[in-house]
């Protein structure tokens, strides 16, 4: 186990050390002490390593992650795991705005609540939020799955494309061109798998599925906003 204390060292040294790890590194476990809300911690990783951040982080922690597992033992600031490609990011506390924004792959788990615009413009990432999510979540979401074990705020899935939204609790309102959809067996399978990976004991049958009504896919004056 390698330990890195941000009270003694700086962000550049931390990130460049983590970036220096490659596929065959044998230093696979890293702990970061004293993050104290610093921005861009552990962004741009690309190795099969596990990084545990002992505290809360600022903006864009684990941004553009590939392969790595990043555990945040606190809350995460805006844009956590933005544009993630693969790997796994787990936040014990809450996540601020734009969690998982534009992510292409991997799994983001928020054990607390996520704020507004969770999964905005997501492009293939899977996101599981144990608590609630804020307004405008999954705005223009393109693909991937957003699973919410609590409630969703206003305008869920506004202008979304092919992403799937699963919500167990209430949805305050649906955004433009987003509708409730039939839950088919394959969706229950996806949910079961994601809930298991995210260590949630919610049951797939308790969720409703939402997605694009596909009325905005081609310009049609009668559907314009």
């Amino acid at each position, binding site marked *: 186990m390698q330990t890195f204390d941000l009270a003694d060292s700086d962000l550049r040294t931390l990130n460049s050390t983590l970036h220096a790890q490659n596929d065959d590194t044998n230093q696979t476990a890293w702990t970061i002490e004293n993050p104290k809300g610093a*921005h861009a911690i552990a962004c741009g990783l690309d190795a099969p390593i596990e990084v545990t951040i002992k505290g809360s982080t600022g903006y864009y922690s684990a941004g553009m992650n590939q392969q790595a597992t990043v555990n945040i033992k606190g809350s995460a600031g805006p844009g956590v795991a933005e544009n993630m490609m693969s790997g796994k990011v787990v936040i014990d506390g809450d996540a601020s705005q734009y969690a998982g924004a*534009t992510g*292409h792959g991997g799994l983001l788990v928020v054990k607390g609540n996520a704020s507004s615009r969770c999964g905005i413009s997501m492009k293939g990432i899977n996101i599981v939020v144990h608590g609630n999510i804020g307004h405008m979540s999954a705005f223009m979401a393109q693909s991937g799955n957003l699973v919410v074990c609590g409630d969703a705020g206003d305008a869920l899935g506004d202008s979304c494309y092919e992403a799937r939204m699963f919500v167990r609790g209430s949805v305050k309102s649906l955004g433009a061109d987003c509708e409730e959809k039939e839950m088919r067996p394959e969706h229950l399978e996806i949910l079961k798998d994601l809930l298991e990976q995210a260590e949630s004991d919610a049951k797939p049958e308790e969720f409703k599925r939402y997605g694009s009504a596909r009325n905005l896919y081609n310009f049609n*004056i009668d559907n314009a906003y």
Partner: protein
Amino acid sequence: MSNENNGIPRTTPRQSYTFNQDVNSDIRRAAATGIYDIRGGGAKRKVPSFDDLLFMGASISRYPLEGYREKCDTSVTIGGLNASNPIELDTPVTIAGMSFGALSGPAKEALGRGASAAGTSTTTGDGGMTPEERGHSTKLVYQYLPSRYGMNPNDLRKADAIEIVVGQGAKPGGGGMLLGQKISDRVAAMRNLPKGIDQRSACRHPDWTGPDDLEIKILELREITGWKVPIYVKVAGARPYYDVTLAVKAGADAIVLDGMQGGTAATQDVFIEHVGQPTLAIIRPAVKALQDLGMHRKVQLILSGGIRSGADVAKAMALGADAVAIGTAALIALGDNDPKWESEYNKLGTTAGAYDDWQDGLDPAGITTQDPELMARFDPIEGGRRLHNYLSVMTLEAQTIARACGKNHLHNLEPEDLVALTMEAAAMAQVPLAGTDWWPGKGGSY
């Protein structure tokens, strides 16, 4: 038609200036379709421009340099402020970001070939980085756009610079548009979207709002790329003084400033013609912002929007730009709107020079299309050669002017070398109206 009606002379039929044939055809089109007009290109209206400026040349108090013999340097370094590998260019004329999707793969390849041969950079666009352009561009600027289509850390690390796009001159405040006709399998896969849909790119970044967030976003991008490559910020010609100030405060290494004549792949005509400021009007406030921060020449200013010739390049540089970017002109050099396709333009209801329905993907010249048959008409090697020639001519023209003004580097051109032909241009460029020592607003705040 006789000139008389029962012995009373007729007045000549008179077209309205307000309701002219152009306007009336717009009204009929709107009435028939119920949707606004979408097109490519930049503002077609006449606006005060570099054509309204002239260089004075040398005189008794300024002596010229010998053409061809005495050196007139054209090199420029972009992004030396924070990046360990700044961009070094042989000519200040760069190729602007144009999306793969709007342009074909071979067209992107030709831009890379021509730019590389001329010692300058080219830029990706909405839709991500293609192997064609990466492979053929020695210096490639990777755009970081609100849509984030195709954005990934591997391509980010292959880039020679990163350009965070906040706005475009043709449509400040608007996102991109790519209509279904151009969403081929390849374009759809790169953008992670279903084939054939009308695709709207976001107008705002998904994970930051405002200058304080932008500063942190820049930090993140630098951390991911190890502080190696410069980070540009591209803004439309909206509020240049403040936009440049905020971008510099956020940590940009270079600013790309795009005026309203700047081209776009596709947007609403009303947007192109009525939102944004002319290129001539935005440069002085931008330079003033850099000077006020003590950052002029440290943070480079790259100007675009309607740049066509070495004279435009020299004028932009005299007013304080470090480099320029070209979009439309580069496409014309490749063969866009060439009269040799006139009969095909006619079939599309237009004529060479006026063709702007790039969104339809039916480009007879095979450049703004994803149709394999049309694309095959375009030869990227020949296109690259033409672009290289054109870039060389622009550079030679700018040098010719600089030497005539007695400058041994294009960067030594200065506002003092210029006069304006109109009051508007004098006010915007803050150079004297020809024959006077005065411009409107002289002695004012900027």
